[in-house]
């Protein structure tokens, strides 16, 4: 039993939350609300996928909000829109994803070759990309006119938007990469014991840069989905993504010290966070009190899920 609690603690916590809110409110347990939870979880989930690979390696990436905003602006001004005359059609999507990958790879390369902590590099990258997004902002809010993008949010199949299905597809791909590619397996190994890998002649640097690039690509994808949902290009569109995605990864059991967790765990973390937010609204908790409660629950949940590891973690940074 205690073993089950250790390995599946976050999943049990999620089920517990669902059960709790289903009992104390009438409105939580409904198909409509389940859909709302999934819709709210989709974009943080895309971000959390990328972040998971970086965290497994015991690095961190804080540039989420900047990269997502920049991606969102580039999408809005290069696709059919209400402000600029440029329209490269759906080519805007690979362009934006490419930008995200390049930014991520740059962060990773700087961190490795200049030997800077990823925390500082990506903090700088966050501000740099926020600045670039502001520079590219065409002065007026560009409405995205291409319906192939906005349709992702509006068009629904079985009550869920295409955003949710695209996210699901991404999750499945990420799970496959994590489990079946050498890159995925090495991410975890790097977080656990990098010196051994170096001594074994493994090209650790390549795997590390790849993880940052993948993360950047995921943030850009989140920026595109954000554009689909809000229908405009906004320099603020990525704001608010950083905290829930890191918190979700850690809640799910992807420790910041690396080597643990994975995509599945991070996704459970996202669901816990979104369910909590949704449930608190349903219960009618004062919105001002909500974030305080959220923070407290996160600390409690992480303390609970890593309790059995606490002796192994000697230095807390």
């Amino acid at each position: 039993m205690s073993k089950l609690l250790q390995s599946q603690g976050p999943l049990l916590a999620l089920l517990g939350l669902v059960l709790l809110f289903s009992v104390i409110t009438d409105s939580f347990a409904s198909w409509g609300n389940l859909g709302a939870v999934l819709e709210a979880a989709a974009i943080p989930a895309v971000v959390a996928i990328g972040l998971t690979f970086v965290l497994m390696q015991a690095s961190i990436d804080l540039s989420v909000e900047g990269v997502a905003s920049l991606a969102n602006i580039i999408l809005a001004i290069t696709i059919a829109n209400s402000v600029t005359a440029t329209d490269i059609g759906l080519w805007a999507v690979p362009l934006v994803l490419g930008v995200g990958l390049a930014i991520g790879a740059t962060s990773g390369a700087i961190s490795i070759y200049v030997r800077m902590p990823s925390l500082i590099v990506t903090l700088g990258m966050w501000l740099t990309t926020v600045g670039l997004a502001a520079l590219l902002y065409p002065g007026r809010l560009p409405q995205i006119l291409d319906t192939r993008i906005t349709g992702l949010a509006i068009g629904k199949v079985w009550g869920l938007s295409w955003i949710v299905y695209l996210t699901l597809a991404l999750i499945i791909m990420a799970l496959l990469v994590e489990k079946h590619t050498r890159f995925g397996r090495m991410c975890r190994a790097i977080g656990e014991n990098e010196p051994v890998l170096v001594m074994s002649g493994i090209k650790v640097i390549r795997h590390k840069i790849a993880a940052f690039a993948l993360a950047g690509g995921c943030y850009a994808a989140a920026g595109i989905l954000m554009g689909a949902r809000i229908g405009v290009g906004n320099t603020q569109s990525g704001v608010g993504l950083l905290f829930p995605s890191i918190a979700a990864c850690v809640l799910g059991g992807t420790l910041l010290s690396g080597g643990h967790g994975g995509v599945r765990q991070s996704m459970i973390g996202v669901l816990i966070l979104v369910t909590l937010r949704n449930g608190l609204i349903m219960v009618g908790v004062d919105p001002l009190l909500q974030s305080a409660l959220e923070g407290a629950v996160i600390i409690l949940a992480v303390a609970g899920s890593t309790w059995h590891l606490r002796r192994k973690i000697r230095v807390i940074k």
Partner: protein
Amino acid sequence: MTAFSLEGISKRFGEVTALDNVSLSLNEGEVLGLIGQNGSGKSTIMKVMAGLHRPDSGVVKVGGRAVQLRSPAEAALAGIGLVHQEQSLIQALSVAENLFLDKPAGSTWAGVYRWNSLRDRAKAQLDKVELDIDPFTPVSALSFGQRQMVELAKVLSLEELVHGHLVILFDEPTAVLNPPEIQALFGQIRRIKHRSSVVFVSHRMDEILDISDRVYVMSDGRNVATRDRDAVNPDELYELMVGRQRVNRKDRKPREAHIGAEPALTLNHVTVPGEIEDISLKLAPGEILGLIGVQGSGAETILRTVFGMADDWQGKIEYFGAPLDIDTPAQAVAKGIGYLPAERKTEGMIRNTSVSENVAITYGWQHGRGAGLISRAKERGMIEGWVRKLAIKTPSIAHRIDNLSGGNQQKVVLSKWLFGKTLKVLMLDHPTRGLDPGARSDLFAVIRELADQGLAILLVGDTLDEVLTLSDSIIVMKDGRVSARIEGVQAAPPSEEDLVKAMV
């Protein structure tokens, strides 16, 4: 036929000569047992053979041909594999992935694992060492013995990659194993002899005599003897291992100890799972108790347990007659227990700060104005007093500690503890490690004087002569247990050979 040889290998690390013109030859199908004390050069010689260290001079020959081993990968191509002490496995990955970690060819296709092929190949390797486990078990789920077998299987996969004769190096493989696991490992070593030569390092004499065809003794970075198994006389080996660590009788200044009647510190049946077992000892004010043992014998663990740094321990520790109930070093310090760690540079001193900062860090408040306010002037006076008393060579107490010599740094760290008004027990963990002979005898004098003033001192020594020169009584540790107790050391000193015999 000679499978592998080292000729005139020397290796220096800065000031320290780790290997001094060492030669070794290994015949085909032979098990060579390598034995020596801590710091005798055993692990350096293994690392040279495995391609982890490059010698400063000398020749490495494989099958009679001179080669340069620039990396573990090159050593592997030459048929040389090092079986690590289980820490080279990645716990989060499966056994199969670990086996082929450094040789991925054939197990992946375009970066994607071919699980079936990987499983079959891993199974074949595991069969060799008769380990019947699912190749996809995560390493974290294995016992230490099983992990050691996986390490062995990882190295034995060289058999398919290299055509010639193999050289398999075992670096203290038995340290974490229990007796049946050790026997299983020995079975494997005997089995692989038909196409490999083996070098086997161990701290334990009985194991060396059990498995080796020849015994190779190291002392102070030199090969002092090589003996065939049939011609081995263990007593002679003990004598050879002592090497230069013999007490110079002239240096001995018998100290008239004034040992208190009531013990300051009493350990009753203290056990730290996996590290020390059933340790009992008594230490009185004014007494110097020396602990000695090979690396991993648990002597350091005793100090760390008393200092509140063990995660999990059983038994009873009494401090001046009352149970000592502490979980953290801060509580130990509050009771009057000090600890001088072995790793001076990382645990002892605070780098990039001044001498005075280092001295006052722990007990400065005791010389302040009370209520948490410190008094710089009073502190300064006290610190200068200690600098004079211990003869610390520093331009001023505001000087950065990093710029002092090792011996002076160690004295600064020591005065941190002496600064306290409440210190009653001082534990010294390898206090002379890395110090030159002059600094060592300075420190010896200080330690003696402290004991004369009534401090109870628990010492883990680096060398035999250190412990023999300083201690009033000696406890020898082996594999986490007490293997010998010697009282009245200053009056009737035991021989160095007796200590070594109890250690290995």
